[in-house]
């Protein structure tokens, strides 16, 4: 897959930033994951999961936590 991963991460971080009205990381992460599941097509979610697995440092703590939940919620393989 040749996804523009920088753009994908940027879009996901924007979602995290806009839902982060509190410091409660698990709560925000749950909302971010729910948003991604509802509105992102599976290919984009897969790509994000791949980035989280390979280059987790590129993601903020909230997004990392959200991606973990993403995997949990949608039950999709990480790669």
């Amino acid at each position, binding site marked *: 897959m040749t996804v*523009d991963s920088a*753009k994908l991460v940027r879009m996901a971080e*924007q979602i995290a*930033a*806009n839902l982060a*009205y509190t410091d409660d990381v698990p709560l925000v992460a749950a909302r971010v994951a729910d948003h991604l599941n509802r509105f992102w*097509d599976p290919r984009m979610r897969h790509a994000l999961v791949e980035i989280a697995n390979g280059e987790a440092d590129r993601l903020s703590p909230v997004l990392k936590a959200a991606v973990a939940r993403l995997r949990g919620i949608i039950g999709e393989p990480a790669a």
Partner: protein
Amino acid sequence: MKRCKVRDMNLYYRVGAERDLGTPAANGNPAANGGAGAAPTVNVRIDGRPIAVPEGTSVMRAAGLAGASVPRLCATEDLAAFGSCRLCLVAIEGRKGYPASCTTLVEEGMVVHTQTPRLAELRRNVMELYISDHPLDCLTCAANGDCELQDMAGAVGLRTVRYGYDGAHHLDKPKDESAPYFSFDPAKCIVCSRCVRACEEQQGTYALTINGRGFESEVIASQNEAFIDSECVSCGACVKACPTATLIEKSVIEQGQPESAVVTTCAYCGVGCSFRAEMQGDQLVRMVPNRDGHANHGHSCVKGRFAFGYATHGDRITTPLVRNSIEDEWRPVGWDEAIRTAAERLKAIQARYGRKSIGGVTSSRCTNEEVYVVQKFIRAAAGNNNVDTCARVCHSPTGYGLKTTLGESSGTQNFDSVMQADVIVVIGANPTEAHPVFASAMKRRLRQGAGLIVVDPRAIDLVQSPHVRADHHLQLKPGANVAIINALAHTVIDEGLEDEAFIRARCDMAAYRIWRAFISEARNSPEATAEATGVPAAQVRAAARLYAQAGNGAIYYGLGVTEHSQGSTMVMGIANLAMATGNLGRPGVGVNPLRGQNNVQGACDMGSFPHELAGYRHLSDESTRRLFEAEWQVALDVEPGYRIPNMFDAAIDGEFKGLYVQGEDFAQSDPDTQHVYAALSAMECVIVQDLFLNETAKFAHIFLPGCSFLEKDGTFTNAERRISPVRKVIDPLAGMDEWDITCRLSTAMGYQMHYAHPSEIMDEIARLTPTFRGVSYAKLAELGSIQWPCRDEASAGTPLMHVDQFVRGKGYFAPTPYVPTEERANARYPLLLTTGRVLSQYNVGAQTRRTDTVAYHSEDQLEIHPADAEVRGIVDGSWVGLKSRAGETVLRAAVTERVLPGVLYTTFHHPESGANVITTDNSDWATNCPEYKVTAVQAYPVSKPSQWQEMFRRFTATQQQLSEQALSEV
């Protein structure tokens, strides 16, 4: 199921002449008085006939209702009574003299005679004076057959003019033919003032005046200028009001009087005006705003009224075209071959690259029925959810934001509600340019005294125009919307201005407490946000107080809200503010998105988004999915598909190869043009269904000629959720209905789709969508229009939403943290560019550029503040280079103080302007709606077009050649 047999209903199409009762109804045109309750009735006797009419009715109107038409010249139902022509005199028993029936109101027991020998004599004398200074060229006059002066001369039995024609007169006055669509012949003017009053009362522009007194009186535009140079906005209200040939459509001068009329709905902006398409046979003569139109009440703007010439423009493609690559010449083919080729290529792509490698885009310019079949085609025939609509790039944040907070993805009010607003807040919208007919209603209310707050980086016309002045103009920096809405809400809480009773009764209290704590934080105060917004804290606080204490506060917003990286957050911030102040659920208040395109609301309602089915129901909702699967007899994919920008990204990644585009022009309208070009070039089969070989068609492999709105049966849904009928005025030029093209394509792909008429598609929509239950063509014919939700067969629609409770139950306060956009000014790109529209052009201009409207706006210009211009050596009218991190273009400068220092503004109506070469791929976090409204740029003087523009010209010339050769063979 009640089936509408539309083909049997001749009346569904043809309507008679409009009746004019001379003065407005007593309880008024709802747009004029806010729909006040019914008045008590008064009993009168007119010419021996008893009649009961509402208190406040004029004698003239009562006479009309009783079947007696009183002669008149200066009176029309569209305007307040004026009493100047002295022709409508009547005799009232027990009263002295002969009062004017237009300005005399009925009284209980009044006995009126509209015709007596004395009245006849008086009227003849009046007419004699009029005719003594009027040309007698009736036979060759353009108004022959539609001249009230001629009618009145006949009605009063004028036989001689005793004064002769040799005295002083106005017959030598020259015509003014400078306006593109109508002519002004002062020699034929009777100075009834109808045009002047229409310009004031209906349009609110005040471009026309009566100059001079007595015999010298004359109608002039602005300071006695030619119409084209005056403040006239060419709305056509004066032309409709004129009783003679003084102001008349050039199309009537050229073609003659129309002989029939069809009521239909305008296909330009989201106001959705109702029009009478007036015809001679199958030739359209003129479009006249429908007095019974529920959105426009007989008013219009230049586009809907006059700019329809594109429908028969020589550039219209009327034969399907195919080619293998975009370097090839277009080859004209028959419909069968075009459909077969399209289906084969799409199937081949799916076979090679997978089910999800193709998708479609529905158009907000097309009818509900056409949109519905496209999304059905993608979901059922292509077997994925890769369907999106151009609302993606305009109001998708409205859908997300209002659904989250209020529970329904739509505006809350009808347009008429504005007439009961006490304070109007306009945020990121420019109604006088983009929603002109609604702007006229808004200005009427402002002239009646409503307060006005404008939140906009630019001094739009509403900030100060004739008899309208904003109480507060919060002239914020582009990108600071959420900071300012938070500051307004913070002030409401901080100063105890919230409506506690409303919040407790109507809203989710747990969410409210979280939001209240959030919004009360010091970072959201006007003082703390002043640096980000550029607006002084005291002004923000004053505006918040004005809105919160208004009584009825109504918010109207546009793309200046949605087209930001925080578009969805801003929509939720607006909803929060309205809930906190109790400004929802009754007339005069509300949260009102001003939709850009005629059918944005409808395209969204029809299930055009990749994550949801018709009626905004998410694909993960199993019961809804089952409902559609049962009706469509197909299994649906449960996963959301690609949004438009995701399609482009996937195309560049090599995973998305085929696209069916219904009436959208990404290559001009979508941001980051070069990215769009790359994406379109990477696809193997781009199918464009449109009127013209537009910018996107330059990248297409198959072109399916579509229909203009004059060639369709269907419905549009406007910004107030009003479903209005679109009626076929002429047959499709390419010989195929647009919905039928999609159905045939679907059938050729292997999924059978057959309807005999669009009414059957609406019946299916009504079966599957709770908010459309009971909507049918028969009901539309009966009611004229219906505002959804229409929840059962008996419902006549819902003008106001959330009246007793919010659609989601309890209103939800969503916390709205301000996250500054990543697109900000820096040393390299120190200026912020924002974009907008002008009145006379429409979006990408594909239609309006092919009409005489270009006389008003022939090129896009770059507005720049004098200070910014001076330091750069840029002068008014010179060429300016404009560079962002996305690209570079060149525009002509307009140096103006309408924009703040540091801010630039342009429009995007002409493709060669390349406004979207500059805009970036940054987008709204929730919906990917592009951030058109903020781009960091540098500006500098140049002497030649940009590299992109050079490339554009070459590419355009090549593509033109490839189509011309093919089309000359047709």
